[in-house]
């Protein structure tokens, strides 16, 4: 086998994995804090739209990235208010936000860009070609775009934040046993807000990648990635590093599927890999993945 093919394959895998990784790592913050976040799909979409919109009007891709993060946080804020403050059903809220994002982005796509399918072409992120690094395969891919590099940094920083800092400990305690955390003086509400908003910021950044990578916003461009990110987070056992590993694995499957297009292997069966893997991991067929104890349970302070 030609080395070039392998290197191209790995580079493609990394690029495909960027939005998955950002959204999946973000989700670990939300869920470690005890809030199930199915709204990832909608956050990705809103982030991508905000990015395209801001870049379109300012011509500055960095402002586009900023707008994506703001858009992601704003979308996550809806989820936080509904599920933490009003203690409403977290899964339904997430689904409603996904429906809202799909409708609202298409609504404004028509109103602002006069098209039901895509925005105009936007400026992309600068392509980096750093001397020396650009000559090393794979490393060159990581350093080719600020957003890829950001994703790598996010994974490492998130792992450290969740498991080596006071903030991380408090966030996890709120997701495992909010009553105990509360009795020790941890502000459950504030911690959960922080977790959900962090996931919004990161998934929003993932949305920026989508828009930048295609140089435009296209209708429904998240196309299920939020759900794959959710799957990756579960397969990665609610850890940023594990989630990133799962994202690379799923990205490799997708990359393989592109290579095999038109061949004899039906691509649909490769498409199934992430979903089948998630079910298998949850059931304990391959390792075992256990969610935080209070994941999905609204915190109701005892009233006396």
């Amino acid at each position, binding site marked *: 086998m030609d080395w070039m093919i392998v290197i191209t394959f790995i580079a493609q895998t990394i690029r495909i994995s960027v939005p998955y990784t950002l959204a999946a790592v973000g989700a670990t913050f939300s869920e470690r804090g005890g809030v*199930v976040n*199915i709204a990832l799909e909608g956050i990705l979409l809103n982030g991508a739209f905000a990015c395209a919109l801001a870049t379109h009007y300012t011509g500055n891709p960095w402002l586009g990235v900023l707008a994506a993060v703001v858009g992601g946080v704003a979308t996550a804020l*809806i989820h936080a208010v*509904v599920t933490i403050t*009003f*203690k*409403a*059903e977290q*899964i*339904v*809220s997430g*689904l*409603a*936000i996904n*429906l*809202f994002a*799909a*409708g*609202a982005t*298409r*609504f404004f796509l*028509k*109103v602002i860009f006069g098209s*039901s399918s895509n925005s105009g072409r936007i400026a992309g992120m600068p392509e980096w070609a750093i001397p020396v690094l650009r000559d090393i395969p794979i490393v060159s891919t990581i350093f080719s775009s600020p957003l890829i590099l950001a994703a790598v940094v996010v994974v490492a920083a998130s792992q450290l934040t969740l498991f080596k800092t006071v903030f991380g400990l408090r966030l996890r305690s709120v997701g495992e046993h909010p009553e105990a955390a509360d009795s020790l003086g941890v502000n459950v509400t504030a911690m959960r807000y922080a977790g959900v908003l962090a996931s919004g910021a990161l998934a929003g950044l993932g949305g920026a990648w989508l828009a930048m990578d295609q140089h435009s916003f296209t209708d429904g461009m998240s196309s*299920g990635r939020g*759900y794959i990110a*959710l*799957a990756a987070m*579960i397969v990665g056992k609610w850890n940023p590093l594990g989630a990133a590993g799962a994202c690379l694995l799923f990205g490799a499957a997708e990359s393989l599927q592109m290579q095999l297009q038109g061949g004899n292997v*039906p691509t*649909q*069966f490769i*498409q*199934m890999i*992430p*979903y*089948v893997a*998630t*079910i298998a991991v*949850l*059931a*304990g067929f391959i390792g075992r993945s256990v*969610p935080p104890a209070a994941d999905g349970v609204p915190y109701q302070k005892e009233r006396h």
Partner: protein
Amino acid sequence: MNQDGTDHGALSEARTSAQARTALLLRLTGAVGVPVIALAAAFGVGALFIAAIGQDPGYVYAKLFRGTFGDFYGFGQVLFKATPLIFSGLAVALAFKAGLFNIGAEGQLYVGGFCVAWVGFTLTGLPGLVLVPLCVLAGALGGAAWGIIPGYLKARFGTHEVINTIMLNFIAIALTGYLVTNVYIVPETIHTPRIAPQAEIPRLEQFWPVFKGSPVNVSLFLALAVAALVYLFLWRTKHGFELRAVGLNPWAAEYGGVNVASGIVTAMALSGALAGLVGVDFVLGYKYYYEQGFSAGIGFMGIAVALLGRNHPLGVVLAALLFGALSYGGLVINSVVPKELVEILQAIVIVAVIVGTNLFGALAVSLKKRSLE
């Protein structure tokens, strides 16, 4: 002494019946009030969106209403849009009653829909009177098979049905996609071959010409009959009672002699079967073949319909009509505002219902406490 005792009895009796009346009143207020407020909230926020793009909300809403409930053609379209939502809403509601959250109706209806078509284009030698019921049965069985998987995984391994049903949705889409593009191929399309002509079920316009032009078909009556059956099953049979007991408190149900594990599998199978019937409407009554991606979210919308309908079959039928009206209404107003407005409205209705239900629940609890003091 005796006199005192009797008085106390009468007093507490009067108090109990007053409490019962208050409880019933509260329940009714919640059942009607929350959806009404949710709708008002949605239309209120929707008005902001309409105004933001420089249109008149009053004009748009009037157009939406006239186009849906204003004449028989529009109403026929609403009924057409409502039919699959009744099935998927019932599917989600039945699972909810057993304490299960079936997000997998979307996948179940794809599998069910494919099975409907497969029987329809394979057993072409059978007369219509045999073939149509077989197709319906196949849809229910296909959906049930897909529903049993997460039910079994939950009963056997304790894994949460929400994640498993989400994953199974995508697997179902890939699987049916494979069948349509690799096995039962019609070149240049993403649909199966056409079903036998005798498997096609009539449209209502054939009996009532006022519905002319609307694809609403007799599967609407199947949906209404199934809604009645779900009601009878849940509230008038022992199995239905057991499922509701599992939903209310699985530990108490287990203690009371109910097999919770088999209850979970049964509920998911029935829920899947109901979702699978969506295929009857689309395949036998509308397109006459299975088409990849035909649902476009009917399974997910079923969640909204069940929530708004408070998981009661009658509520589900009414909520399906409302969501059907919104989804056809989007097409009516599309010339003035983008039809995606209705998706925004639907999302707001969902959020308002879950927030409202919670707030109302808290209010009801505090009122009850006060009346006990």
